[in-house]
């Protein structure tokens, strides 16, 4: 399952990127590390706003990227 499969307001644990994506490194340093809990705050247009619950940080990622980010 990927972030793209999550509904609005649902929570999950981030498991890592399915395929290598150069932006993944940046996302990791922004706080999206393996094992972090995330909540989908908003799905709008081409983008998803994620709340990284362990950090209290909000990140926007586009749906293409969300489609390769695995969660459980």
């Amino acid at each position, binding site marked *: 399952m990927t972030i793209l499969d999550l509904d609005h307001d649902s929570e999950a644990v981030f498991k890592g990127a399915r395929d290598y994506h150069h932006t993944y490194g940046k996302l990791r*340093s922004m706080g999206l590390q393996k094992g972090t809990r995330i909540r989908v705050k908003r799905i709008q247009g081409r983008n998803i706003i994620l709340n990284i619950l362990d950090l209290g940080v909000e*990140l926007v*990622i*586009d749906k293409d*990227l969300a489609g390769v980010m695995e969660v459980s």
Partner: protein
Amino acid sequence: MGNWAGVTVEKSEVYITLDGHNLHIIDLPGLYDLKATTDAEKVAANFLRSEELDIIVDVIDLSNFKRNIMLTLELLPLGKPVVLALNMADESRKSGISVDVPEVEGMLGVRAAFTVGKTGEGVDTLLKYVLECCNKIGKPGGAGEGGDARRKAARLTLPRGDSEEAGEERWKLADRVEKEATNFSKRKPSSLTHRLDNVLLHPFIGIAIYVLLFYLMFKVSFDFSGPYMDWIDGFMNNFLSAGFTALGTNIGLPAILIRFVNEAIIGGVGFVVTFIPLVAILYFFITFFEMSGYLPRIVFLMDRFMHRLGLHGNMMTPLLLSFGCNVPAIMATKNLENRTDKILVGMMIPFMSCPARLVVFAFFSFIFFDHPAVVIISLYLVGIVVALLTALVLRRSYLKGKKASFVLEMPPYRLPSYRTVVIIVWAHTKRFLWRAGTVIFIVSMIVWGLLNLPPGIKGPDESIAASIGKAITPVFKPIGLDDWRATTSLIPAFLAREVVLSSMAVIYKTSGPEPAPGAASPDLLVLAKEQGIGLLTSVKDSVLAVATLGFSSFDVGDTGEEDGLRNSIKRSFTPASAYSFMILLLLYNSCVATVAIMIKELGRKYSLIFLGGSFVIAWVLAFVVFNVWIAL
């Protein structure tokens, strides 16, 4: 400045002397880790890895303690002494976060101090720790070595490198530091940000609020500043100029010197200074949006629209900054990962109107049109449309590259501190004043000199400036500019847009009628009293103007004289040629500083393509507008 990566894009530095130490303090662009992906991050990462620095002051945003400590864990193995500024301590206290500073210091082997950037709280302690490090530099058992010993005591082994494994190891260590030294997990999430985002990010209501806020920005900028601009203009012409003439005549100064001061300095530089209230208020709004956290929300809202043009939301930040000034906007393209995106946005930015162009538009619009606000907004729209069409054409032809993924951090909303906003607005205004005192002053002197040379000419019509203006007039005649005075003022416009007005003020004033000989000397006390009353009236008018719903007009440049600058210019343009003149100034390049920064960021090839292309676009559009206007 903001405390998240992406706000600062270049190094900025200051020298201070403290307790006998000469400190060279360098503020680097923010970054999340040393594996930099954008040009701005590379500036910081390369510098941190270099041997040019002695001490690193790592500013930690306490609301994101663990993530910020990740960078600290990358900095420590570099072997330089690190001092932690635990910043935004006020906000963290309000959110119930407590940090055990001795525990942090013990675990990481560094000195740490709570700070509040917007009030300066804790800076003294921070500098004390910096000086402690300074005193240890070069001595055995310096700060770096001592730090290693303390870290060993805390059994903290630092991973090195930027592999995924090293990153995960650092994450675990950051987690351990957070758990042992803070109660971060008990923090209260910001419900204000959540509630505001429900409205401000709404696909319809959010866009409507965005449009309304920008309308208010322009309305308040125009209407509040208008009366003050009128007052400054009157002060320059009716008090300063008149006073200097009276004083100069009384003490027997040569007539040519009196003319030079009145025409080149007060007429040229002084005229540009008139626009300071407008520039300062516009910068106030842009700074407020940036510092409050609203700017990333605009980026998010506009992403869908930008995507249709082959762009993405991240490109909005430099484009929005360009309304403040094109130079920092082009510098902000350093935050774009993809070189193709960077070139694309760099080519769009100079088409977006900046305050320097706005002052020219304001002047012409209020002279030639009944609804100046509509004309000014139409010019802004022309700039935006041309920029978007440029992106559309380039993305589908020359700059086809793959778009970078859209990733953005949404900072929480913050009420910017009054002090910080004032400091930033003052920095921008000072730059505008500096240009008035340097570039514009020099250009005004040169233009005045060219208007009075060669010696012995009967009038400016026979001057060198007139010869140059007449030589280039055929190029501009098809777009309605057939007066040498107008075309001459276009030449220095390449340096800075506001120079057009100062040059016009010099040219038209010099070529205007001579003051009547033997005119009675004005009573300076009476003039000063008039200025005082005028200032009070401006305060009242500015408040009343903002309170009205629509745009109120302001009347810049009307000195009240029968043959003032405004009337001279009115006789040399028509509404059609004035609009075509403004189109040319809007679209052809923006200033020499923009060209210089384009060459640095995009390279010479793309800068030259832009210079040639923007002139062709500007001329063709001005030609079409002028001829359609005449035909109608």
